[in-house]
């Protein structure tokens, strides 16, 4: 895709560590810490929700190998594996990717968060909201299955996923 940093990166041999048919392991030039490695699908998918599951699985498995390699070769004391999925999560490249970040004590990188105190009610409501969404999703899947798997999913026009829209605008 035009102007996509990761799609463009595919042309830059010096940044690509390895690639499979579907997935690329690369060293970006914009990083949190030196030694950071990025794993992303070759095909342009904006967010995780759009990446086919087999490709997604391969991405994380390769990220895990990269994590081990970083740990053993760069003298790091740990690694973080991070996916920023969607604008709200600070995703700044409109192409899904996994970051593997080498860590050292006192490297100055703060990847912790302040625990957010929640009331019992909030917790209860959140749990219910998630559980019923999962239930609905399961019901939808069943219904779809009964209709015959080959039929296209019913379209609801005019409703675009906000994330896709906003990411495309940036692309």
């Amino acid at each position, binding site marked *: 895709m035009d102007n996509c940093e990761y799609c463009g990166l595919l042309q830059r041999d010096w940044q690509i560590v390895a690639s499979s048919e579907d997935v690329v392991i690369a060293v970006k030039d914009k990083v949190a810490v030196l030694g950071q490695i990025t794993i992303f699908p070759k095909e342009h998918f904006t967010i995780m929700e759009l990446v086919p599951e087999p490709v997604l699985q391969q991405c994380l498995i390769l990220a895990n190998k990269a994590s081990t390699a970083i740990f053993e070769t760069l003298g790091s004391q740990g*690694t973080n594996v991070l996916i920023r999925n969607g604008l709200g999560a600070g995703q700044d490249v409109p192409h899904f990717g996994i970051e593997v970040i080498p860590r050292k004590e006192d490297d100055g990188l703060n990847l912790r968060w302040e625990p957010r105190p929640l009331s019992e009610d909030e917790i209860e409501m959140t749990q219910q909201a998630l559980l019923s969404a999962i239930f609905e999703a399961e019901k939808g899947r069943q219904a779809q299955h009964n209709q015959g798997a080959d039929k296209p999913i019913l379209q609801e026009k005019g409703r675009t996923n906000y994330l896709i829209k906003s990411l495309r605008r940036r692309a």
Partner: protein
Amino acid sequence: MEDAKQMTEDQIKLLQEKMKQMSPAELAEFQKQQCLFCKIISGAISSKKIYEDQVCLAVLDIAPASIGHLLIIPREHYSIMPQVPDEVLGHIMVIAKRLSQIMLKALRASGTTVFAANGGAAGQRSQHFVLHLIPRKEGDHVLDFPEKIIPKGLVEKVKAAVEGRLFELIGVKRAVSPASLEADSNASGPKNRSSEQPELALAKSKKASRAKPERKDIILSKRKVNSAKANYPKTKVKSTKKNLTKQKEASTANAEDIKLDDIANLFK
């Protein structure tokens, strides 16, 4: 587990003595018994469960970064991610994706952060590998960090430093894992290629579901992979820009077709 719950000081001393004499395997077993997440899995400690299957479960974090912050916990005890077998990791990734879809919809999140910490220096606080799934909203400043541009020379240095070991790690798999010929007809025998960027002979889906027959979760993840494959065309996105990279994909759906509801339908 019950022993650990009601220990007197004498018992603790006795245990410490015992631990010194334990073999690494016994010690690992003992650590499992002490692990908070293993207790959550066994039900000894209560939790707000959102999802569970044979391989993992997802619970609400008790010290969340945001409302709906989930932990995806493998049932098996692994201290860090590198210990997690590919099959389990692949399964957890799929669950994370599906739960992420659920979050975007049910919690009106405008993004999700998937996060794992390996080692104390990386901020890991538990002895049990967990994958964090954090619903996000713009401007919430969870996990914000500055980035810098590094020169080409350093990029090349990093590449040179890690590639050898990385190839070893993947190369081992290359010998074991079947090539993805079945999945893609134009795969031209990646094993025989001798380009500067070695193609990793990772099977498209077999990679994640590579059989290890004694485990039932593998069968599960294989099933998931297969079903994911079947659903693949529905989740394809088509770029409206002129240069479609994959024109050959006749099944490319319009981006307008993709709604969270549809994607969530894949949830099993």
